[in-house]
C-alpha cells in the first residue's frame, strides 16, 4: 500500500512564521519590515504577483517529494482553477487538487474545464469537492441552497459531469440540472476523470461520498473519533459495492526537538489577541465539521498547554491562522510517529501544511516523511 502526500498551497497569502498571524507574503500587506511585497519594485509594479510565490511553493513541494497540493477556495482567496491553469506549465509532476463547490460551475462547464486542464497538465488534476460550509458565506457565493439540498445537488452534479465526460451524448433532466445530448469533443473526452477527494461530515455528505468519492477527506480530529468516522465511511461505501480510501488534512509543526516545536506554538499563542480567542467560539455556517471542532474549549484557554488534546496534537491552530483547530506538533520523529499512527487507523493519504509553506515543504519532505515506514510512503524515488 502506498500513501500519497500532498502539500497545501496557501491561496490567500502566507506568513514567514507561524508565530505571526499576519500574511506578510502576498500583496495583501503593505511593504513593511519583514514583508515580502511581490509585484512592487521601488514602489512600482514589476510584473510579478502572488502567483509567482505560489509557483515557488508548488515547485518546492514537487522537488521535496510531494505528489501535489491542495488549492483551497474561500471568498478572499485566489481561484484554484486559475492558479492551476497558470501553474500547469511552471510545474512538472505537481498534481493540482482543486477545491470547488458544485454551486460554482455547471457540470458541463466543469467537465470541459477539467478535461482541458487535464490536457494542459498531462493528467494532473484532482478534485476536492466541498459541499459543506453554508450560512451567510454560501450566499456571498451567490448560492441559495440549504444544507441537505446541497448534498443532493452535489450527487447530481457529479452524475452529470461524469456522464457528459464519459458517456456522451448524455441526456439528463433532474432536480438541479438539465442537459440534452451533451458530450465533450473526442480529444477532451479521452482524458481521465480526476480523482475525487470529498469532504463533509454530515449524514447527507456521507451518502454522497459513498457514491462518488475516491477519497474521503477529513480534517484532523481526535484520533479515536477519526478512526470511527473512517470506519463508518468505509462501511457505508462497501454497502453499495464500492471501495473508498481515507485522507487527512493536517497542519504540522515539526522541529529537531519537541522543545523547539512547542516553542513555536507558545510564541504563536502569546501573539494571539484576546478578541481572536473570544471570536473563535462564534463561527457561523452550518458545517457539521466546524461544529465538531468548536467544542474544544479554545476560547477559554489562557496557556497554549491548555489546548494539548493528546500527545503531539494541539487544538489551537485556528487561533494562529484561519482553518482547522487540530494539528500535529513535535520532533521529526514524533510527528512521523503520529502520522504512522494515523495510517494505522485507516489513512491512505495526507494533505500536509506548515508555515512558511515554501521552506517547510523542504523540511517536512526531507526530515519527517523519510522517517515513516518506507513501504508506506510513495515518494518520487520509489516510483523510479
Amino acid at each position, binding site marked *: 500500500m502506498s500513501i500519497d502526500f500532498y502539500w497545501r498551497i496557501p491561496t490567500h497569502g502566507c506568513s514567514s512564521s507561524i508565530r505571526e498571524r499576519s500574511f506578510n507574503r502576498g*500583496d*495583501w500587506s503593505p511593504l513593511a519590515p519583514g514583508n515580502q511585497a511581490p509585484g512592487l519594485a521601488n514602489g512600482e*509594479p514589476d*510584473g510579478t*504577483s*502572488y*502567483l509567482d510565490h505560489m*509557483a515557488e511553493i508548488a515547485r518546492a513541494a514537487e522537488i521535496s517529494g510531494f505528489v501535489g497540493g491542495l488549492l483551497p477556495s474561500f471568498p*478572499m482567496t*485566489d*481561484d484554484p*482553477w*486559475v*492558479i*492551476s*491553469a*497558470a*501553474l*500547469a*506549465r*511552471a510545474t512538472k509532476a505537481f498534481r493540482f487538487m482543486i477545491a470547488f463547490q458544485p*454551486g*460554482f*460551475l*455547471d*457540470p*458541463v*462547464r466543469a467537465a*470541459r*474545464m477539467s*478535461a*482541458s*486542464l487535464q*490536457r*494542459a497538465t*498531462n493528467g494532473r488534476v484532482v478534485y476536492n469537492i466541498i459541499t459543506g460550509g453554508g450560512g*451567510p458565506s454560501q*450566499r*456571498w*457565493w*451567490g*448560492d*441559495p441552497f440549504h444544507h441537505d439540498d446541497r448534498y443532493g445537488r452535489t450527487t447530481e452534479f457529479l452524475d*452529470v459531469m461524469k456522464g*457528459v465526460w464519459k458517456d456522451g*451524448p448524455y441526456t439528463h433532466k433532474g432536480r438541479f*440540472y*438539465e*442537459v*440534452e*445530448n*451533451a*458530450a465533450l*469533443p473526442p*480529444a*477532451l473526452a479521452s482524458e481521465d476523470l480526476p480523482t475525487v477527494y470529498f469532504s463533509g461530515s454530515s449524514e447527507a455528505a456521507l451518502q454522497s461520498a459513498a457514491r462518488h468519492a475516491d477519497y474521503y477527506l477529513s480534517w484532523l480530529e481526535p484520533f479515536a473519533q477519526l478512526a470511527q468516522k473512517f470506519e463508518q465511511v468505509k462501511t457505508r461505501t462497501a454497502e453499495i459495492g464500492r471501495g473508498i480510501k481515507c485522507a487527512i488534512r493536517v497542519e504540522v509543526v515539526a522541529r529537531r526537538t519537541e522543545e523547539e516545536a512547542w516553542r513555536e506554538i507558545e510564541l504563536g499563542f502569546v501573539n494571539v489577541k484576546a478578541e481572536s480567542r473570544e471570536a473563535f467560539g462564534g463561527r457561523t455556517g452550518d458545517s457539521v465539521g466546524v461544529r465538531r471542532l468548536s467544542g474544544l474549549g479554545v476560547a477559554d484557554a489562557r496557556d497554549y498547554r491548555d489546548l494539548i488534546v493528546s500527545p503531539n496534537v494541539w487544538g489551537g491552530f485556528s487561533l494562529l491562522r484561519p482553518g482547522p483547530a487540530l494539528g500535529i506538533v513535535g520532533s521529526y520523529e514524533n510527528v512521523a510517529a503520529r502520522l504512522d499512527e494515523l495510517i494505522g487507523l485507516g489513512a491512505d493519504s495526507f494533505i500536509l501544511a506548515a508555515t512558511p509553506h515554501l521552506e517547510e515543504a523542504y523540511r517536512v519532505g526531507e526530515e519527517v516523511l523519510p522517517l515513516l515506514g518506507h513501504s508506506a510512503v510513495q515518494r518520487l524515488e520509489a516510483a523510479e
Partner: protein
Amino acid sequence: MALSFFWNLLTTSPADRRRAEWGDGDRAWAPARDAASRRLQINHYDYLTQVARVAELTGFDGLVIPDEPDGEEPWIVTGTLLRETRRLELVTAVAPGSASGVYHAKMASSVQRFSGDRQGWLIDGVRGLSAGDPVVPQDSPVRTGELLTLLEGLWGDGPFDQDGEHFIVEKGGLGGLVKGRRRPPVWLRQSEAPGADLLAHAEVLLLDEARPVDALADLIADARRANPSLRIAALLPLLTRAEERDVAAETAYLAPSPSTLVGTYDTVTENLRGFAAAGLDIAVLSAPDQVREVHIAGEQIIGRFRAVANAA
C-alpha cells in the same frame, strides 16, 4: 485613427488541431523510444501558447479566446497564458449560464491580479441544452444584464446585494482582491443584437458577422448612440499573400468564407484603413495554420498599417 489588432485564438481548425497531439498511431515517424516521454513533455498547450507568444512578438495587442464547443475551454486557455505572455490583452469567452455570476467574477479577480489587469470578457449569451444551459434565447439578455450588473457590483468593497431571476448575492463583494484592479472590459457580440441597456454595460461591441464596408459606418453610429464610449471590434478572417497570383492560388486551395478579408498585403492593409476611417477600433484577425498566419498578419499587415500611421 489608431486601430488595435487582436488575434482570434482558434483551437479547432484542422490545420492546428493535431499539433502536439499524441493519439494512437499518430506520428509514426517519431522514434519509438521517445514516444512516451514526448507524450509527457509536449502537449497541445505547448502549441497554443506558442501561437499566443508569436502574436505578442509580431505586434498584436491582444487575443480573443473563443468558446468553441469542440475546442479547449477558454478559462483554462486564458489561465495557461498568464505567465506565457507579458503584454497581450486576453479576451475570454464567458457564457453567463456556465457558472454562478459570483464565480465568474471571482475567477476574473485572480486573472486580473496575476496578469496585471489584462483580461476582458466576451459574452456568449445562450449555449443551449447540449451545454447544460436551459435558458431560452429571449431570456438571455436579462441574464447577461444581471451578470454585468453583478460584476460591476462585486468589483468593489461591497456589500453588494442582488436578487435577480438568474443570480443572487447577499453581502457580496471582492474587496481587497480587486482593490486597484481593472474590472474586465466587456465585449458583446453584434450577432446577439444587444439592446441599449446591455450596450450601456459594455466597453466593446464585436461585429461578428459579415458586413459590407458601407454599412459599417451606420452600424457604428447606431451603437455609439446607445453608449458613446463604446469601442467597435470586427471579427475578420484573413487570407493575405504578397502578390495577386499567390492570393489566387491560396483562394483556390482554401476556399475562404465570403466574410474573409482576401487580398494582397497592400490591398488588405488598405481595406483595414478604410474600416478604421469608418470608425473601427479593433480588428480581430483569424486564420487557420496559426503560427504561420500570425507572422504574416503581424509582419505584413500590422507592419504596413503602423509604418504608414507612424509616417503620417
